[in-house]
């Protein structure tokens, strides 16, 4: 699985949803670190991730997302071996 590609796609999603072209993803990034990451944009971010990566998260999985690393890990576990482009 190509983790850099996941990060690249996820960066595009974050920059669009949170309306900030300067966002650089790092493992420990959380909602507290991003100005526009609120309850509304969180829903949109999850929706975009599910759409772009063609995945569907379980509620239990969403509840374990502590930071960007856990989101990348989760996406990676779902799209393992899947061709992204």
């Amino acid at each position, binding site marked *: 699985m190509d983790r850099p590609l996941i990060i690249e796609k996820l960066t595009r999603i974050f920059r669009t949803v949170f309306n900030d072209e300067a966002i650089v993803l790092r493992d420990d990034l959380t*909602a507290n670190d991003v100005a526009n990451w609120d*309850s509304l944009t969180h*829903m*949109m971010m999850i929706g975009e991730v*599910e759409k772009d990566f063609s995945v569907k998260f*379980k509620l239990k999985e*969403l509840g374990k997302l*502590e930071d960007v690393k856990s989101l990348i890990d989760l996406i990676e576990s779902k799209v393992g071996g899947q061709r992204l482009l």
Partner: protein
Amino acid sequence: MNEYLIRKAIAADIPFLADVVIASEKGMSDRLSFTTLFNKSEEETKKLIIQMFEEEIDGCELSLSSFIVTEFEGKPVSGSGAWIECFHENMQSGILKSNLISYTFGKESIEYLKTKSHIVKDVLIDREPMTLQLEYFHIKDEHLGKGLDAALMERIEQNALAEYPELKKVQCQIFKNSVFSIKILLRHGFKIVGSYKSGNEEIFDYLPYNEKLLMEKILKTD
């Protein structure tokens, strides 16, 4: 007051709590954000709210564990939700609620929300960690004026202090046109500490009002 039983909410209360959420969300209007922002009917919304309660995610306004219920002659007549924000290292309640909605409402609703979110963003208020957050306070009309509001408020604070003795304040976010509820909160020692207003007139099609107040009651000073 002896004829009333105040107790923690149980799973059997969930349909009633869905009604409490819907009535509280509408406030003094006929607009329900769960329907207007997510393009759902009120009937569908009630089913989805029930589903969200059934997930039993703690720490937000759609958590069964956040609610107390008043029974009169064996039937629920009031429901009140309150939780300590980010307690037990929980995520922010807004994120927990968003996870519930994302999971339950489905992608079409989230796509719809994307086209409307700019209208309501100015009245979103951050919740302060480790404060008691009061949300959804509803008493059936025929039981108003009987002292239930004071008893409920006291019980909510007692329960929270029993769980977290260092608790310093209670906060409540409320639309400015909810004049009756604001009056109750002021009577119970709350003060208005902030105001968040949207200049977008479209907001009246989606939310009960264009201005939200942050009200606060200090329980303990340092």
